């Protein structure tokens, strides 16, 4: 077997594993509650791994190294701040969401929002924000998945360079299969497999990157520093303002990522959060080693003239693996790349389907659809197809698309859920206005391609504005009357 065939064998083996997990999970998925909430009976190990693997998405494994290649060490901020973001997420929501889920028996995050604020309009707007964010973010994941597969297949002599749309169809077919058959149960158990592959891949790849450059890690940093001192400084090429505004959105925004915080409602009991926080932080930081290792290595190799300049920054990971890694390592890491992407994409498919078949109909009609489980499976397929279309139509770089999705969620959900679930004074009107502010600013600034001075990140302005609107309106409104059960869960 040659190198490309070994890599392809690993990818096929990994995809087969996902299909097997999907079939196994199908037998455990008997109701809508199983499909969307795993019956609220997940263990802490599987939930922790699902949380960190869903965070370290294709955006991190493919877009992350590409960002270091482009802007240097400034992107380290995203890694450092995400680690802190986990702390914020668990302090704010680790216990609270599980308690509120016990009271409300939800199928989705908007269910809990509706119950907490006793407002269908707030639940509706939360679902709309989730759906918009899902389309952008899921599109990113699907695009990354197709790019990785295209890169692998291009090296197999008997296959050659396939169109991106074909690679998208192949990878989406596997993803959609296990998501449709097994719902969130398949999603979290494939996340478990995927998380383990990602950690192993990251540790192995760091060793490979260090041995690929003379002088190891310090050799890389000295080469980059000699070429451009700023690129290796803490602010990279984007400057302090750009980096600090990213920091803001990443630290505070993690508690607003619905695909992550929804998993906090799926555990057996609130005590599980004690172990889940350290496991999530350690898992994420270990997998981030791949982001740093490949990014620095590829920038160095290109600067030294040892590798041709990349046609696209997102090619950093695939190029490194194809050129410098041992075939078996390349196979494991390519499987890790696919795993990173799929572990996030499956979560988005699930919450997006919940928004379409459950949250929006309930908000508009006051009741769910008949035969909700069947519609959930159909919606999963439709969302994947629409997101793939969005990804094909968008010419933007993978990492930037992902960041827009992240900021849409941050601005809309952080005030409503992360703050509002801990603050009885928060009102439905404040939440509605905060969500609308976030959507208008995030989408508006993106549509009109607004670049703020000093590269201040648009998403940071949107988050700051939505938080301010939320606090001001809540303080100025009459205190809301809470349902006694909700109040009990908020007092504990």
């Amino acid at each position: 077997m040659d190198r490309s065939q070994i890599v392809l064998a690993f990818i096929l083996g990994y995809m087969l594993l996902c299909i097997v997990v999907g079939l196994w999970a199908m037998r455990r998925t008997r109701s809508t509650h199983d499909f969307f909430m795993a019956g609220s009976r997940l263990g802490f190990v599987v939930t922790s791994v699902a949380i960190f693997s869903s965070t370290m998405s294709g955006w991190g494994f493919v877009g992350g190294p590409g960002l270091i290649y482009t802007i240097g060490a400034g992107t380290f901020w995203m890694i450092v701040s995400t680690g802190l973001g986990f702390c914020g997420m668990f302090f704010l929501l680790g216990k609270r969401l599980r308690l509120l889920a016990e009271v409300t028996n939800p199928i989705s995050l908007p269910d809990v929002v509706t119950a907490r604020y006793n407002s269908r309009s707030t639940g509706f707007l939360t679902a709309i924000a989730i759906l918009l964010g899902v389309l952008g973010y899921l599109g990113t994941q699907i695009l990354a998945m197709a790019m990785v597969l295209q890169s692998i297949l291009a090296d197999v002599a008997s296959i050659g360079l396939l169109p991106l749309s074909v690679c998208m169809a192949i990878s989406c077919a596997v993803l959609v299969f296990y998501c449709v058959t097994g719902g969130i149960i398949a999603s979290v158990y494939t996340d478990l497999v995927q998380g383990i592959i990602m950690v192993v891949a990251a540790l192995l790849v760091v060793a490979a990157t260090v041995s690929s450059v003379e002088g190891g890690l310090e050799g890389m940093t000295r080469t980059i520093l000699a070429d451009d001192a700023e690129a290796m400084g803490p602010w990279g090429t984007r400057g302090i303002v750009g980096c600090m505004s990213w920091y803001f959105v990443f630290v505070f925004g993690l508690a607003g990522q619905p695909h992550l915080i929804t998993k906090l409602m799926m555990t057996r009991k609130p005590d599980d959060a004690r172990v889940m926080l350290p496991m999530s932080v350690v898992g994420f930081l270990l997998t981030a080693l791949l982001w740093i290792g490949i990014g620095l290595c590829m920038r160095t190799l290109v600067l030294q003239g040892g590798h041709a300049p990349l046609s696209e920054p997102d090619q950093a990971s695939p190029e490194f693996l194809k050129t410098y890694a041992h075939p078996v390592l390349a196979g494991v890491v390519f499987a890790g790349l696919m795993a990173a992407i799929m572990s996030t994409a499956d979560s988005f498919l699930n919450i997006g389907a919940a928004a379409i078949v459950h949250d929006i109909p309930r908000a508009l009609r006051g009741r769910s659809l008949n035969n909700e489980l069947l519609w959930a499976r159909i919606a999963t397929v439709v969302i994947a197809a629409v997101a793939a279309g969005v990804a094909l139509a968008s010419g933007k770089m993978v990492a930037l698309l992902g960041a827009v999705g992240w900021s849409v969620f941050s601005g809309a959900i952080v005030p409503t859920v992360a703050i509002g679930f801990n603050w009885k004074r928060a009102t439905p009107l404040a939440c509605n206005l905060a969500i609308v502010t976030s959507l208008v600013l995030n989408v508006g600034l993106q549509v009109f391609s607004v670049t703020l001075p000093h590269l201040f990140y648009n998403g940071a302005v949107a988050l700051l504005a939505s938080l301010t609107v939320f606090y001001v309106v809540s303080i100025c409104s009459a205190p809301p009357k809470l349902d006694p059960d909700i109040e009990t869960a908020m007092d504990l």
Partner: protein
Amino acid sequence: MTRWLIPLLLIASWGVTVAILLSPEPVAGFAIPHDVIPKMEQGDNGQQRHEHTLLLGWMFGVLLIATFGGLMVWSSGARCNSLMGGLLVATTLIFEGVFSAMCWSYHRQLADPAAVSFFGSFPAGTAWQLYGMGAIPFLFVGIYVGFFSRQIVTPRTTAEFPHLSKSSR
């Protein structure tokens, strides 16, 4: 006090944000294309591009860290004079210190780019960022785990948890 702390910090953050947005931009701008390699950026002259924003950026960072620390104290329900509250405040102050050390290190690097000191294979400023700020989550994790059963999920929470679903039916 904690109740008003976050809104006050948000107002202060707006003040610094507006000051940043109104401050003059460097002539060369940011995200400058690399001289030789396509699709790669270079930072160019750090002194020039950070002439008006290093102090404002530091202030913005200090406010964000204070907001983060404030949210940790507020959400944990711990009083600042309790052991957990005190540790959270102390961790936030350490966080502020590490961030300030990083900014200071970078400032010194700008003054004398030839004399960059290395620590753990990275220039000092980047080392503070990766090893210093990268370690801060573990302090918060330690507090969360250490005080979990005393302050976060207390025996009362555990005892009442099974009754929550029953009461809502």
